[in-house]
């Protein structure tokens, strides 16, 4: 309880710090899967650790102590968690829960709105060409639809047009929105790892880039369509362009183009092992912290007298 219970927070911090580098160095599909899994595990571990810390304060409430048949005073004495830490954890649990529910509700509404949009699209093909000059976008509704602007398509050579559509269909085929939603929710309850979110967005974009490149058979074609579309968007008269972007959490275009012009990414087992070890550390410390918490409560239950004696925790057999 002294150290293990704080480990998950360290893991979340480290994961957040390492995520951008992992997203750039690992093959993108690996990076997206690994980071999403680690992010969810780390968030769950952090929540559990906060719960353990908060329980040492909550357990001292007379009503809870009576219900659980332990002594509030003995719990306070037996707990190795400083009261202020327990209170802070309690606050963090409350904030995390409210924020998590808020984000969950907002994302559910967004998914429903997109489903409604998907149903309103004409025809039953995947691609819908529109005259509005929006950027190409993959709509994960039903089997998935792609919206692309006629003007944008007309500005591209045939091979680049194909690359753009393959990129969007890769997003849909691999259900990239689920990865994004998962890390988004994980980040909402565990703000220490917020940077993972943009790293996963970047990894899913790179994943779609590389998959399109594989299908076209030339990575430079995808680099060209990204650069050309970016320049086209930058030159567009729409002042609102910037507000359309995903904001600071978006995926930068220039590194994507550079990555496609560089050598194809290769597996890096050492990075994979390091990230998995980090996730296992979080899980292991949660298990350990849970045992410690149980021990603390057992001490509080095994009170021979309601009398409180402050002092170090001793196993009383």
């Amino acid at each position, binding site marked *: 309880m002294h150290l293990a219970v704080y480990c998950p927070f360290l893991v979340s911090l480290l994961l957040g710090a390492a995520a951008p580098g992992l997203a750039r160095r690992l093959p993108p599909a690996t990076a997206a899967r690994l980071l999403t899994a680690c992010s969810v595990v780390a968030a769950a571990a952090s929540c559990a650790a906060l719960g353990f810390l908060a329980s040492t304060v909550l357990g001292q409430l007379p009503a809870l102590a009576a219900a659980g048949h332990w002594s509030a005073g003995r719990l306070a004495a037996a707990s190795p968690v400083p009261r202020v830490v327990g209170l802070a954890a309690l606050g963090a649990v409350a904030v995390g829960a409210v924020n998590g529910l808020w984000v969950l509700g907002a994302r559910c509404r967004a998914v429903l709105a997109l489903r409604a949009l998907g149903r309103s699209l004409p025809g039953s093909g995947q691609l819908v060409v529109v005259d509005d000059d*929006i950027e*190409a976008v993959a709509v994960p509704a039903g089997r998935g639809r792609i919206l692309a602007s006629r003007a944008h*398509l007309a500005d591209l050579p045939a091979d680049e047009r194909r690359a753009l559509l393959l990129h969007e269909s890769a997003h849909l085929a691999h259900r990239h929105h689920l990865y994004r939603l998962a890390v988004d929710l994980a980040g909402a309850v565990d703000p220490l790892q917020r940077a993972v979110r943009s790293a996963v967005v970047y990894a899913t974009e790179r994943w779609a880039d590389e998959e399109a490149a594989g*299908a076209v058979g030339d990575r430079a074609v995808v680099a060209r369509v990204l650069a050309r579309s970016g320049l086209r968007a930058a030159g567009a008269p729409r002042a609102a362009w910037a507000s359309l972007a995903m904001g600071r959490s978006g995926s930068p275009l220039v590194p994507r183009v550079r990555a496609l012009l560089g050598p194809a990414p290769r597996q890096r087992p050492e990075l994979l092992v390091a990230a998995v070890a980090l996730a296992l550390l979080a899980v292991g410390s949660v298990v350990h912290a849970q045992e410690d918490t149980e021990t603390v409560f057992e001490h509080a239950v095994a009170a021979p007298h309601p009398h409180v004696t402050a002092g170090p925790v001793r196993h009383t057999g």
Partner: protein
Amino acid sequence: MAGVRGQRRERGDLENEVLAALAAAGRPLTPGEVLEQLDRALAYTTVMTTLSRLHAKDAVTRQRAGRAYAYAPADTATAAARRMRRLLDGDADRAVVLARFLDELDPGDVPVLQKLLAEADPGAAGGRD
């Protein structure tokens, strides 16, 4: 199972490509003209069947042009585009779910992108249009 899904996806990708070529052309095209527009090694019959599938899905309309049909994209989804734009402009929630082709662009990126484009396209430096 994965093979079937892979095939369906390949077919879908081809449909997208053909429809995009029709939209980019801005006028009805015969299957032969579509094949020219696609600019890669595909069989004429492949293009034909793809156009038929698109027609069955109400994604294209066709009219007689001599012995063949000429195909054009079905009416563009103006209302859908407007709703899409509202969703995108609306808030960041949707942005998480939507994968946009371009996510973020800084004005400072423009010269870098120009350089990279020239690098990626040595044959046609300076742009193609």
